[in-house]
């Protein structure tokens, strides 16, 4: 493997997830986060060498929605920049590659988009193959239900187990000030909610939510000056799979499995279970269980702690839910997770995903110590 640079997450700011911010457009929501992340690091925008963003035109319902974000990211004078039409966790991945390439030491990564501007189920239908799958009206709730059915059929998981998992995440969400769902509830209550699409009940799924996020990466030498407890990136890998729903085993996530293996190998760790905290970008309880199996995690165990923030089940702003996982891992390692902090957390895994049925996955391994000397 090539010699790699030590790079850390040194700042992270997130707008609390809400169903609809009726008073601010996406860039206004983002501006406060850019400002807050820079302030955390004690720097101004001239300290940033590169910037990357993740968003999707279709969420805004207009082309080039990302262009307006340049104004609030501080692109004056111009900055080296790349916009990805992806969840912003992949923008962070690209920013990390830029720092590895050696032409940047610091990077600002943003995720934004107003999910409430449209109907996500109708918008995300357009991600499917236009010739064979989009036209039959599949939406992400339906495809997630297909995946949940496949998982339950293979694993024997029950409706009751999905309800219990969703209830645990709701309890965690009550401790996270940025979560959208902050009212704890019981598995009994959730199991009484009607089907969204069988076997997924409405109570197991996150509501429509929107936010804006900004995360700052810095290479060794600068990271220590920008943050008293940087979260060092020890390994990262990402993989896409075929979209074709009939072309892959929906009860498994081959991409998350491979990305985890590669990221752990880069990090010099044998097992995912060797970390203290895991943040999974799972938008249904079944997805979370599939990811746990793919990554070699005990979904019912107490260590590592899984989704202490509550995860996307208590707030799922599309195109940034993955980057929030990386930000949450940073908060845990930097001692900034406040009410949902995991005591003694020194290593973490952050997972990001996009597409129907966990089509694409990115896995980050972080630690409170540098990986390479």
């Amino acid at each position, binding site marked *: 493997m090539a010699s790699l640079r030590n790079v850390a997450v040194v700042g992270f700011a997130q707008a609390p997830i809400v169903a609809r911010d009726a008073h601010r457009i996406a860039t206004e929501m983002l501006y406060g986060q850019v400002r807050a992340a820079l302030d955390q690091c004690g720097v101004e925008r001239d300290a940033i060498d590169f910037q990357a963003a993740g968003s999707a035109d279709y969420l805004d319902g*207009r082309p080039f929605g990302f262009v*307006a974000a340049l104004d609030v990211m501080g692109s004056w004078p111009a900055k080296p920049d790349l916009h990805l039409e992806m969840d912003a966790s992949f923008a962070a991945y690209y920013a990390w590659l830029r720092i590895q390439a050696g032409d940047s030491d610091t990077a600002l990564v943003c995720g934004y988009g107003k999910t409430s501007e449209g109907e996500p189920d109708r918008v995300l239908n*357009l991600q499917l193959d236009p010739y064979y799958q989009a036209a039959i009206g599949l939406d992400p709730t339906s495809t997630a239900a297909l995946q949940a059915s496949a998982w339950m059929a293979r694993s024997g998981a029950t409706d009751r187990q999905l309800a219990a998992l969703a209830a645990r995440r709701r309890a965690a969400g009550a401790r996270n000030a940025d979560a959208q769902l902050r009212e704890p509830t019981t598995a009994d209550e959730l199991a009484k909610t009607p089907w969204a699409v069988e076997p997924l009940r409405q109570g197991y799924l996150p509501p429509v939510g929107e936010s804006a996020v900004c995360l700052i990466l810095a290479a060794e030498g600068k990271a220590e000056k920008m943050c008293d407890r940087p979260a060092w990136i020890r390994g990262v890998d990402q993989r896409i799979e*075929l979209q074709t729903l009939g072309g892959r085993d929906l009860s498994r996530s081959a991409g998350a499995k491979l990305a985890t293996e590669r990221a752990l190998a880069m990090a010099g760790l044998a097992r995912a279970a060797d970390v203290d905290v895991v943040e999974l970008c799972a938008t249904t309880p079944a997805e979370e269980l599939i990811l746990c199996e793919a990554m070699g995690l005990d979904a019912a165990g107490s260590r590592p702690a899984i989704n202490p923030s509550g995860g996307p089940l208590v707030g799922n702003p599309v195109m940034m839910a993955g980057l929030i996982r990386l930000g949450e891992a940073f908060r845990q390692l930097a001692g900034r997770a406040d009410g949902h902090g995991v005591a003694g957390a020194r290593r973490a895994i952050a997972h990001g995903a996009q*597409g129907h049925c966990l089509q*694409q996955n990115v896995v980050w391994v972080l630690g409170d110590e540098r990986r390479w000397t």
Partner: protein
Amino acid sequence: MDVSRQAAVLGVGQTQHASRRADVSIAGLVREAVDRALLDAGLEHRDIDAVVVGKAPDMLEGVMQPEQFLAGALGAHLKPLIRVHTAGSVGASTALAAVTHVRSGLFERVLAVAFEKQSEGNAMWALSPNLPFTQPLVAGAGGYFAPYVRAYIARTKCPPHIGPMTAVNARENGGRNEYAHLREPMTLDDVMNSPVLWDPIRYGETCPSSDGACALVIGSEDVARRTPHKPAWIRSGASYAEAMWAPGRDQVSPRAGKMCAKAVYDGAGIKNPWKEIDTAEIYVPFAWFEAMWLENLGFCDVGEGWKAIDRGEQKMGAHLPINPSGGVLCTNPIGASGMLRLGEAALQVMGRAGAHQVDGAKTALGHAYGGGSQYFAMWVVSDER
């Protein structure tokens, strides 16, 4: 910085471009370019370590993040993939993102793919964004850019025949490019007599709507030394973006373009681009932009760009052949147009541009821009390291 890895273009592939490629699906169109690039590089899908996909707004085809359904056709299953969208510059910034993958040291061979299948949708609608707090007056890209063309003419006293001259030259070049969409010659009169679409931009000075794709294989130095064809060495590359509403921003000659050009020339060790660059493929969607970019890119001083064109220095066989492929004025599959500029620059220094080869081209510039003249992406390629 202590890290400085080289990267090179190993293979170039593009489709036949046309207003409507009804013979292929979106996947088929993309695959046509990918197969040609892999064949050119002497590689198979299994040799590719990562895939970078670019295209302009998803509204152009009506498929959100189409790289997700294209993952199979791209041979990307269980590989790393990113999708880039930087407006009109996207094809170029996609190629540069592939270069970053190689220069990170983690990837040996990366496939960059860019496409647009404009016949699937309505580009005029998709390129007429309704910006917050702004009157919805923009009618397509030409409606947006026409005021800046007028400003250039007013500032530099550029005479009215410069746009038509540029358009005629582009068609002459496109006639020699077997892949170009528009290859029929035009006369100055043809252009002058064509209707004005957005004052002063005439129909004959406007790029077409095309279906097309382009693919490049970018490799590490180690791989490039073993490739079947002579590679194009990427001497430097950069992408810059600037804010939309910054006070003092000049859209006639944007600061982001100047900064990007300086970064690329500095990286390539170029002090005088007019003397040291043999040919350039630059993003000219409306003919007048050729003169504007000659100034913004530092080839000419302010007010001198149109004079270089008036003297014919941009023609094949002259001092600095611009867009020997015919450029965007002959072929505009929007998402792919920037990658075509970079790929054509690479073909020139590889000596494999066919009938539109510039004799003895050793160093070439590829350039693209996008947004409201906000996004710039460029590279300089050479026949030697």
